[in-house]
């Protein structure tokens, strides 16, 4: 099965990439800046959480669209798994950001559009879990959840990526222009680790997603087998 080789190849690639990111991220030179000093290395890890979350939730957005087109419950299950995975990375992003903030800005939280936007974005997805839990009929639940989630992605994106950019000055970096990806914004030395870090985290989050989805699929099949027996 050629699929099997590929399945191992990309995972090994992800591990190698992440090992490079961990070693390079801690050992390579970084620009000497006041206040943040060595904590600038957090960019490789904290920002990676958000890239992963948005990537996974975007894929989930596509799954929800696919569900509404086909009404195949497979897509509903996959969409649910993306939210579970995305929320893990979202919470890790918030927690790592708070630790970083405490040690550079002197407080865990500031009333900043970027921070509050991220919190609201996550709450919107938590509501998705509650919506799902309150419905029993799989088809109805799938339909409502998919419609809600399509809006949720748009709202989350607006709150995290757009509103912080148009709501004036912010203490959080990366709200003007295209953060990090724009040439000349991030130090060239750091780009050697930053770009592999983003790719590595995205691949790693996808890996976690596949595990969650397979677990859910097995659960679903067991329930089906039990139901058939009755």
């Amino acid at each position, binding site marked *: 099965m050629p699929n099997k080789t590929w399945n191992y190849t990309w*995972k090994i690639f*992800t*591990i190698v990439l*992440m*090992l490079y990111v*961990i*070693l390079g991220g*801690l*050992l390579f*030179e*970084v*620009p*000497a800046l006041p206040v943040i*000093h*060595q904590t600038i290395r957090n960019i490789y890890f904290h920002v990676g959480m958000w890239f992963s979350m948005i990537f996974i939730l975007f894929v989930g957005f596509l799954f929800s669209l696919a569900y509404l087109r086909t009404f195949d419950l497979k897509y509903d299950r996959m969409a649910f798994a993306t939210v579970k995975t995305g929320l893990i990375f979202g919470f890790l992003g918030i927690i790592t950001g708070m630790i970083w903030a405490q040690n550079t800005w002197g407080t865990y939280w500031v009333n900043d559009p970027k921070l509050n936007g991220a919190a609201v974005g996550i709450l919107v997805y938590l509501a998705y879990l509650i919506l799902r839990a309150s419905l029993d009929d799989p088809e109805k639940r799938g339909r409502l959840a998919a419609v809600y989630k399509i809006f949720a992605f748009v709202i989350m994106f607006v709150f995290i990526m757009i509103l912080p950019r148009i709501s004036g000055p912010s203490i959080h970096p990366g709200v003007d222009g295209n953060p990090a990806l724009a040439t000349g914004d991030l130090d060239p030395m750091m780009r050697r680790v930053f770009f592999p870090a983003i790719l590595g985290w995205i691949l790693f989050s996808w*890996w*976690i997603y596949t*595990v969650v989805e*397979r*677990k859910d*699929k*097995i659960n679903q*099949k*067991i329930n089906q*087998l039990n139901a*058939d027996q009755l």
Partner: protein
Amino acid sequence: MTEIHGKIYVVAMVLAIIFAGLAIFLFYIERKLDRMEKKINEMEEERESEKVRK
């Protein structure tokens, strides 16, 4: 400040090993999932053949 000293490379190595360990654990979980999937497929097939017999 940019100079790396004070044996930070030891911490880097420790983190790398922890990550590698967790990745191997993921492979282990996936192997378990493989087996469960196989077993469930067998059960489903069995169920199907039972239905045909009836």
